[in-house]
């Protein structure tokens, strides 16, 4: 199939936007500019999710929810110190071991300010200090401003994100910030945007949800799904990629394809059916087994209203919650293709709407 959307380009465009949890409106205009050509209607929910709606044209059409969260981990300013150094705290599960010497953007009032996360040089450390990891509240961000000048743009609560710089690695892999979960959002958008309306079996609501990274309450996806009231849902989020220091049972390898979550909370029949259909279409996929919660919006979406049958799919990603997350665009393309399959397949429609 010819793709009219360059998935890598869309992934990088979305990932580079500032969307630190709780501050997703910052990039609203840029987001709408990117996605509005492809959708019939865009709505914003009370809790800051965006519903990108694509209609199938049928009367009384069913609604299909495709969820990917738009928010990303980041930091906020807690104090402005002498010589324009900032202290911060994290939003979301920040991996503090990657922070020192990293580059950030401080999203100030009317000005985006470059900063470097400071560190004490080894020559000046006390014995034993280098073995300890600093708490995020002990780190300082160096802006190169005077305190007085900085206070014109920055205040307590100003959000900070990683500087968006992307690097190509081998074998169609890329490294950079914000792929969790905007790479999945890009796959969802690309999938839904490319399908002719009459091939959709229902109206598709791509939900770019908010508050996924904020302490696990996932309130954006929960209330957004309530508002849509879909017949079924597919939740797309990143999945922990295999590395030499992790167990194979807890991770999925990159280039292994899109992962399909299997466990107590995902819909068994839909998941099995999607797997079979993906085999037929030769979409590369793998199984990701979770004993309890998936750690994704599936945990809340499947319990909305009377319960929503939910499939949970994953994009393998290494170095999660860092400024250099690594994904394979081969897997991202597989994710796009499996979402397209989900919203077009008559077998899926029959499974969720047996009486029609």
């Amino acid at each position, binding site marked *: 199939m010819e793709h009219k959307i360059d998935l890598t380009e869309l992934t990088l465009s979305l990932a580079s936007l500032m969307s630190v949890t709780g501050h997703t409106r910052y990039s609203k205009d840029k987001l709408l500019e990117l996605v509005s050509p492809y959708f019939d209607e865009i709505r914003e929910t009370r809790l800051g999710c965006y519903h990108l709606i694509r209609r199938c044209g049928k009367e009384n059409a069913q609604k299909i929810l495709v969820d990917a969260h738009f928010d990303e981990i980041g930091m906020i300013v807690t104090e402005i110190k002498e010589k324009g150094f900032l202290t911060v705290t994290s939003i979301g599960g920040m991996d503090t071991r990657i922070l020192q010497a990293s580059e950030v953007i401080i999203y100030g009032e009317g000005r985006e300010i470059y900063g470097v996360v400071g560190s004490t040089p080894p020559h000046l450390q006390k014995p034993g200090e280098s073995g*300890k990891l600093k708490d995020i509240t002990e780190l300082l961000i160096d802006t190169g401003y005077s305190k007085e000048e900085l206070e014109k743009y920055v205040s307590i609560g100003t959000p900070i994100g990683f500087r968006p710089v992307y690097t190509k690695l081998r074998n169609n892999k890329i490294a950079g910030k914000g792929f969790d979960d905007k790479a999945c959002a890009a796959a969802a958008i690309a999938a839904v945007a490319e399908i002719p309306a009459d091939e959709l079996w229902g109206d598709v609501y791509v939900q770019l949800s908010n508050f996924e990274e904020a302490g696990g309450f996932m309130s954006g996806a929960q209330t957004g799904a309530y508002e849509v009231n879909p017949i079924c849902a597919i939740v797309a989020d990143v999945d922990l990629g295999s590395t030499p220091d992790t167990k194979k049972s807890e991770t999925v390898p990159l280039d292994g394809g899109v992962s399909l979550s299997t466990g107590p909370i995902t819909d068994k029949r839909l998941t099995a059916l999607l797997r079979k259909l993906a085999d037929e279409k030769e979409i590369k996929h793998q199984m990701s087994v979770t004993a309890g919660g998936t750690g994704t919006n599936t945990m809340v979406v499947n319990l909305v209203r009377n319960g929503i049958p939910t499939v949970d799919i994953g994009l393998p990603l290494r170095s999660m919650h*860092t400024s250099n997350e690594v994904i394979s665009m081969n897997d991202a393309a597989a994710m796009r293709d499996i979402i397209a399959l989900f919203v077009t397949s008559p077998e899926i429609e029959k499974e969720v709407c047996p009486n029609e």
Partner: protein
Amino acid sequence: MSETKILEGLELLKHLSLVFGPTGSEEEVADEIIKQLENTDAQIIRDRMSNVFAVLHGKNRPEKTVMLSAHMDEVGFIIKDIDGEGYIRFGCLGGIDSRVLCGRKVTFRGKEGDVSGVIASKAIHHQSAEERKNATKANDMYVDIGATSREDAESVLLRGDSGTFDSEFVIFGENDGYAKCKALDDRLGCVVMIETLRRIKEEGIELPFDLVCAFTVREEIGISGATAAAHRFRPDYAIVLETTAIADLPDVPKNSRVSEVGNGGVVSLMDRSTIYNRDFVDGAMKIAEENGIPAQIKRYVSGGNDAGHIHKTADGTRCLAISAPTRYLHSASCVISIKDFESIKSHVYAILTSYQF
């Protein structure tokens, strides 16, 4: 052959800082420096270990030799092993705090060109409570180049290949007063020497001594090419141009900060490798004061540099060190003040033209 573009000031600093030159692989830096020295009157010598010397003979066959010295190498990485899944295990070239490694991008120089990667360890989701408190050791990290297997990785990189941080040159801060890059340690010193030689030519002066500008190799591992430089020229005086790690951060007491960014070049009294010649130090500070050039005395005994080798080679050399105060030294994001860069150039020129050697 491409035409050499002569660059100046910050453009030259940016250009040289981005050149690949981890300890032991300084050849490309040497090539670039030689090109940039083209329009000076110095005689260029390149020795077997790739030290570069620019020699400017003084008036009337002078007796004395003064050496300026800066090192070309930067901290970096060397591939020690490539594992079965194509991850790169590395050693550090020079002293790098393991806490500034994880998450940073690196570039390895392979046989067919550069290979990008990210230094990684397991995701926070898989770290135990204990692991989250302690820094990961460098030898527990690996570089992810996106390889699919050992064979795939070995098609572009081999054990023994070297790498550096992958870091852009960024001008930032109030009034664009700061620069951030890898390798400012010590390409900044190299630029100061190049621009000093150019200024001597522009001003049309003849020095009353032979001046040697030594661009040296392997400073970062301490087994330094500066020893060979000092032995070859036996200078009476040497000025080591460096960057020095400082901690002018809030909450650090003044006496532990070493010095302050923006207050001029840092003149050392003593560090972990040298006790400097006090007359030379006092004379240099007096010249700064008389000329209204910002300069500051290093307030803390820390670090070391090529003066440690130069001052005790052959029958000894009187040494001075002037360093740019640098935040986050030996990381991907070294930060200097552009004002300090200018102050150091003025200070070095003033010393060469007015100190009684």
